[in-house]
């Protein structure tokens, strides 16, 4: 589920819709977490769908390293990519705000962390825009992502976490917040491009 202080807005015909903050979302807040209403579609389940669904599932879901497609049940599916995103993936089941997200600001994440199957062009306009997003971006970006997540997570115990009770595995976040578990390294949940393509491709 996406953070409750957000809404859907139309960005432009080229980009489509995006998700925007309606109130301040402080750095360190979990901005999205896998909840019980999100769809977890295994490769076998995806094969049951008629062809008309393949494109939709590919567009609106992200992939786990186990090859599941996660289709957000809510406007979480409209979060856009930025090379200078306001959130990064804390694990396969959570996103974290890596800076204060001001009211009216768009929530973005880095699709390079989402095991994308097909490389995408990027025109996000950020000064550090990579020009494209690839399934194996973790090889180049992993250390930087890890540092930013670590910095943001230091704030996590001190900011409101409205999504905590809704998570499928709230104990995973509690363990992190209370220091019982170490932050997962991006390389552990961002597969390389070849691995992601093999496991995560949508049915033709």
């Amino acid at each position: 589920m996406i953070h409750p202080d957000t809404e859907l807005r139309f960005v432009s015909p080229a980009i489509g819709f995006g998700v925007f903050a309606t109130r301040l979302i402080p750095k360190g807040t979990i901005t999205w977490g896998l909840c019980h209403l999100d769809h977890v579609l295994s490769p076998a389940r995806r094969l049951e769908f008629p062809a008309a669904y393949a494109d939709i599932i590919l567009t609106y879901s992200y992939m786990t390293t186990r090859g599941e497609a996660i289709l957000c049940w809510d406007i979480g599916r409209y979060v856009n990519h930025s090379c200078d995103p306001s959130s990064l993936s804390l694990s396969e089941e959570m996103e974290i705000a890596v800076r204060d997200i001001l009211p009216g600001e768009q929530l973005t994440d880095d699709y390079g962390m989402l095991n994308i199957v097909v490389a995408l062009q990027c025109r996000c306009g950020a000064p550090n825009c990579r020009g494209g997003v690839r399934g194996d971006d973790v090889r180049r970006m992993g250390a930087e992502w890890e540092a930013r997540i670590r910095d943001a997570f230091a704030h996590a115990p001190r900011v409101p976490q409205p999504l905590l009770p809704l998570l499928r595995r709230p104990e995973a976040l509690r363990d992190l917040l209370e220091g019982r578990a170490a932050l997962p390294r991006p390389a552990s949940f961002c597969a390389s491009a070849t691995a992601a393509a093999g496991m995560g491709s949508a049915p033709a």
Partner: protein
Amino acid sequence: MIHPDTVLQFISPEIGYGVFATREIPMGTVTWVHDSLDQILTPAQVQRMPEIYADPLTRYTYRTPEGNYVLLWDLARFMNHSCSPNCMGTHYGFEIAVKDIPSGGELTVDYVTLYMTPEESFDCYCRSPGCRWHITGDDMEALGDQWAGVTEAGLLRIWEVEQPLLHLLNDATLQRACEEHGVPYQLRFRKLF
């Protein structure tokens, strides 16, 4: 799943979003089919869910005759109510266009056909001819025959128009829907002879 020739568009802060046709969708076209990505929740499940889900579950679900909540997974959840709707629900998990919907036209449905309980009600701002202003679950008693006739008129065109969603409906379901509305299912095979 909603008809593929549709997009989400913002209407106003009061109404929010609606679903609009990107090409003409002729009368008789199946505009929505229930599928396995729509999640069915029992009233007990809904009651146990945290408060934060209450608003989206009210907005984005419809009720089955058994009282379960069906959480629509795609744009279909943004379809607005109209007292003069261009789509009609059936008891068989699909909706059908009962008017020609022009390109750019909004797809609407009368929420009273979505099994509102007698206690449920809301104010309507559609202001179409015949707007009932205040919609209650009881409206179905007065409107049932009228909407059944309108649905029948749509079903009579079902084999005459392009049907991108029809392959998602199983034949037996469609046959039962036709029979309920007195539409000869055999019309399907007319083109063969």
